[in-house]
């Protein structure tokens, strides 16, 4: 899949321009604060349905206006769709596909999707554990959309048991149904996340062998909260029993302690814990590697080339590592990359095909001649 055109009426500080994109590499250069990241965000918001930045969706409405409005032409296996998005202050986001209001992008549950790297993604490796759980769950969801039901049900059953822990109810009969549901879903989530981590790990190893070279080795290890149960003979039964036994403690703290809502994974760069020992550059490289690994998993599942949006991917990397990252990027995907310096970036991209350069200045973007 790729994006043929982007047509911005208003989006954050961007306004009134139309871009024709290259099917290959699209590089957006300019000083920070002029709108490079905003452009990538506008594409991600349509293709993925949400903003990859930490901000809330209404912040894309310009300060001096009442609405944001932009459009992309999407090309999925030679089917073209004009997708318009409008966000009015105080209203829901509206998606208009070829003139028809839609809830979701066509093909959204079949791998139509943009692979993104934004500086916020550092949190996957350096932030709180929920960032890592979300990363794993997103991979599972993208390959198996029905997993949403597992996540949602787990969350509901977890909230229900917590509500019960805070209530006057103390009899086991009332707790048992929710504990049985939590046990079933908890074991399922754990085994799915274990499988996703394993797949990521395999790809990371292959990347080290083929693209990065030995000096860059990134490893993940899943740390499931239910580790002792998944190895048991009858995990669901054992877990159910454990929930029963943990009731007095959980009642005291009024919260369910056991379960995949406390999962995490650890990551190492050349055998050193990334959170504790790695430099910014090493961490950046590791996050990018994770994102490339995510691409390979999706590629395997859907055989579709996502659009790849990389915000400020090259900074903090030395020349060798920059080259390695470029080499590891998927070759048959449309890329949108941001960088500060035009000439430097042009040099970095040497040898890549179909390169289009765009200058970003004060909310306006122009394709170089």
């Amino acid at each position, binding site marked *: 899949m790729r994006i043929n055109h982007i047509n911005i009426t208003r989006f954050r500080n961007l306004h009134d321009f139309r871009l024709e994109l290259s099917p290959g590499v699209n590089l957006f250069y300019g000083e920070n604060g002029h709108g490079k990241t905003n452009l990538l965000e506008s594409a991600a918001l349509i293709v993925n349905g949400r903003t990859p930045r930490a901000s809330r969706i209404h912040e894309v409405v310009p300060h001096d206006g009442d609405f944001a409005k932009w459009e992309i032409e999407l090309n999925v296996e030679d089917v073209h769709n004009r997708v318009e998005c409008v966000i009015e202050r105080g209203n829901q986001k509206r998606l208009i596909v070829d003139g028809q209001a839609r809830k979701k992008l066509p093909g959204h549950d079949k791998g139509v999707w943009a692979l993104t790297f934004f500086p916020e993604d550092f949190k996957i490796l350096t932030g709180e554990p929920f960032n890592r759980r979300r990363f794993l769950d997103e991979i599972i969801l993208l390959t198996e959309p029905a997993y949403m039901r597992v996540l949602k049900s787990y969350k509901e059953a977890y909230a229900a048991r917590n*509500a019960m822990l805070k209530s006057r109810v103390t009899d086991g009969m009332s707790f048992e149904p929710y504990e049985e*549901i939590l046990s079933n879903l908890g074991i399922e989530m754990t085994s799915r996340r274990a499988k996703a981590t394993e797949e990521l790990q395999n790809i990371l190893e292959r990347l080290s062998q083929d693209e990065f070279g030995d000096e860059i080795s990134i490893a993940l290890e899943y740390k499931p909260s239910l580790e002792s149960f998944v190895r048991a003979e009858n995990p669901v039964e054992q877990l159910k029993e454990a929930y029963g036994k943990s009731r007095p403690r959980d009642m005291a703290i009024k919260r369910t302690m056991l379960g995949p809502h406390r999962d995490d994974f650890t990551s190492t760069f050349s055998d050193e814990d990334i959170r504790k020992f790695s430099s910014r550059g090493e961490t950046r490289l590791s996050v990018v590697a994770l994102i490339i690994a995510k691409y390979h998993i999706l590629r395997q599942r859907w055989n579709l080339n996502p659009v790849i949006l990389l915000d400020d991917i090259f900074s903090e990397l030395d020349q060798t590592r920059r080259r390695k990252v470029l080499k590891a990027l998927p070759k048959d995907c449309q890329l949108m990359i941001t960088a500060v310096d035009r000439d430097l970036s042009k040099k970095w991209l040497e040898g890549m095909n179909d390169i289009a350069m765009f200058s970003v200045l004060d909310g306006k973007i122009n394709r170089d001649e």
Partner: protein
Amino acid sequence: MTFNIRPFDRVIRELCRLPGVGPKTAQRLALFLLRENQENNERLADAIRELKINIRFCKRCFNLSEDEICAVCNNPQRDQSMICVVEEPVDALAIERIGEFRGVYHVLHGVISPLDGSYPENIKIKELMERISDDGVEEVILATGANVDGDATALYIANLLRGRVKVTRIARGLPVGSQLDYADQGTLLKALEGRREF
């Protein structure tokens, strides 16, 4: 928001108590009623007034009924040994519409839902247990919704009945998180026919 016109505000206040009706909708409905002719409004008022007088809950199954015992429970052709447990009267209606189910119902009037403060004693579970000890019931079909609360309620009842009667759960063919009354008849029939023993 009040208009300080007492009869108008009173209608808005009363409408606001209805499920799914917020202040804005209530205001719109009240304005509609104000413009409506008096005869139609009286008919609506009468219908509401008579609702509780002429309709009650069946003493046995707690479905809507005009008499003490409802038409289904009273029908000698219906199989009293097979009870289908549903959340609300609309769910019983949905199953009744298929026209294939020959047993009787038990309406719980809700579902166990700790987040909404609803526990087993708040719904008609005790009454179901009493029916099972008297009636010579052979199978209880649990047809609560295919969502977490519906599943938890079914599990709770199944645990109570374990070893006493055959307990089955309708199959999972229903749309995600669905309530029975939203499912189409074919899907519902398949769910009922594909029921499995707990």
